[in-house]
């Protein structure tokens, strides 16, 4: 089983999984921010904002993720010259690709986050918003203090699902050269075709280790934090 020790020493598999984790966490944070904004737009009383929010969700959600990620690199960077890192740096390519991947992953998953939060908003009874209006709160304050806190607690389970999907989808970043887990898996498969299934097993196990606790945590959170009605 020398391939397992090679995973740690020669290929630095832990570093690859660390990159996967960073990629996931940063994209998750950014997706949460964008997704919340989009969800608020969709439930806002202003027609134009509603339309923009709906269009965002429908367009992005129905575009393949590989296309989004490849566009971030070949479209934004290679063709339009948008660089997200210092061009003179020795690690420019790696930094730039990582940030472009975070951008692509978060823009893509924001559409799912927005839908999860909107479903959370729908769990809040109409009377809550009406009561908030009755005591004179304007729209944004109604959201901020009454609706969204309850909506997030109702949306925890679907948000957990999005996070698990995001963890696995981060492997798509390898198409633009981010050295996360699946990229290192490809290198190991190229060099050690004789033990290809062991290599595959190691990486499959790695992803199970990452996603299983997330699922358990979010399930228990969704039970504990659910608004008792």
């Amino acid at each position, binding site marked *: 089983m020398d391939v397992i020790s090679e995973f740690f020493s020669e290929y630095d598999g832990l570093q690859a999984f660390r990159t996967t984790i960073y990629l996931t966490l940063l994209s998750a944070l950014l997706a949460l921010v964008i997704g919340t904004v989009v969800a608020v737009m969709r439930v806002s009383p202003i027609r134009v904002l509603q339309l923009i929010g709906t269009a965002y969700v429908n367009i992005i959600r129905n575009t393949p993720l590989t296309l989004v990620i490849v566009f971030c690199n070949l479209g934004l960077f290679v*063709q339009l010259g948008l660089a997200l890192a210092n061009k003179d740096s020795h690690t*420019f390519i*790696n930094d730039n690709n990582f940030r472009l991947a975070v951008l692509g992953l978060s823009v893509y998953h924001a559409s799912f986050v927005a839908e999860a939060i909107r479903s959370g908003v729908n769990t809040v009874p109409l009377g809550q918003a009406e009561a908030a209006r009755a005591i004179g709160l304007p729209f944004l304050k109604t959201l901020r203090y009454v609706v969204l806190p309850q909506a997030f607690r109702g949306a925890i389970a679907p948000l957990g699902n999005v996070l698990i999907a995001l963890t696995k989808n981060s492997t798509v970043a390898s198409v633009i050269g981010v*050295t996360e887990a699946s990229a290192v898996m*490809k290198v190991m498969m*190229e060099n050690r*075709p004789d033990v290809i299934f062991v290599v595959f097993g190691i990486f499959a196990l790695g992803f199970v280790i990452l996603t299983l606790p997330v699922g358990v945590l979010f399930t228990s959170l969704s039970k504990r934090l659910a608004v008792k009605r």
Partner: protein
Amino acid sequence: MRQRLIAALGIVGLAATGLTACGDDSGSGSASGGSGEKVTIGIKYDQPGIGLKEGANYTGMDVDVAKYVAKELGYGDITFKEAPSAQRETLLANGQVKMIFASYSITDARKEKVSFAGPYLTAGQDLLVKADNTDITGPDSLNGKKLCSVTGSTSAQKVKDKFADTVQLQNYDTYSKCVEALGTGSIDALTTDNTILAGYASQEANKGKFKVVGKTFSTERYGVGLKKGDTETCTKVNDALKKMVDSGEWQKAFDKNLGASGLKLDPATNPPKTFDACA
């Protein structure tokens, strides 16, 4: 009653489609095959000049060698199947393909899993740069430059380890993305086997834009992948390859597929004069 009728019609319909499917199958087999057995051969679908699928046509050096060898082995009906790098060993082990001609370099690690006939071509790692580039003359002049290759390939890693440790690596999932990035100047060079580079440089859309540097720094011996231990086929394939070289067909296939790019292969090993012993 009515439902039964519909069900009966449905069954008849299914049976009819089943029958026509069978009919089609045997029809196409005899139409394209003539005489001889069927064989499935693994090739690359995305490498111009080597193995490329364009609609229903297959072109490239690997394809022409595969066709010649299959004919010599007595197969009349060839089915091509895509053999992506990571799946080549599995395809052979499962028997999904009989032989693989897919820029498949003979290495010791691969010999653990499959047997090789050949080599039928000896390539080498090289660099592709823009046609007007003068400061990249070989792997040693890559320090501080941006180099592109494909995720999982060992070629870019080799440059970094052996020649230029301050080179920056861009990996994509396909070489065509590297070519795209090279065209706009966001990377400086693309590295892989000179045969593959020549194939891209001579593509219609890229003519005159790029050049192969022409200083190879590795030896890649392309072999014919066979199921482990299949010495019988291996011997036959080697005989067929020898015949192909002796009859001049090898040179013809090379000129047709890679000649236009101006690619110069090492004349000591190309066309191949000796083949590895089958084991």
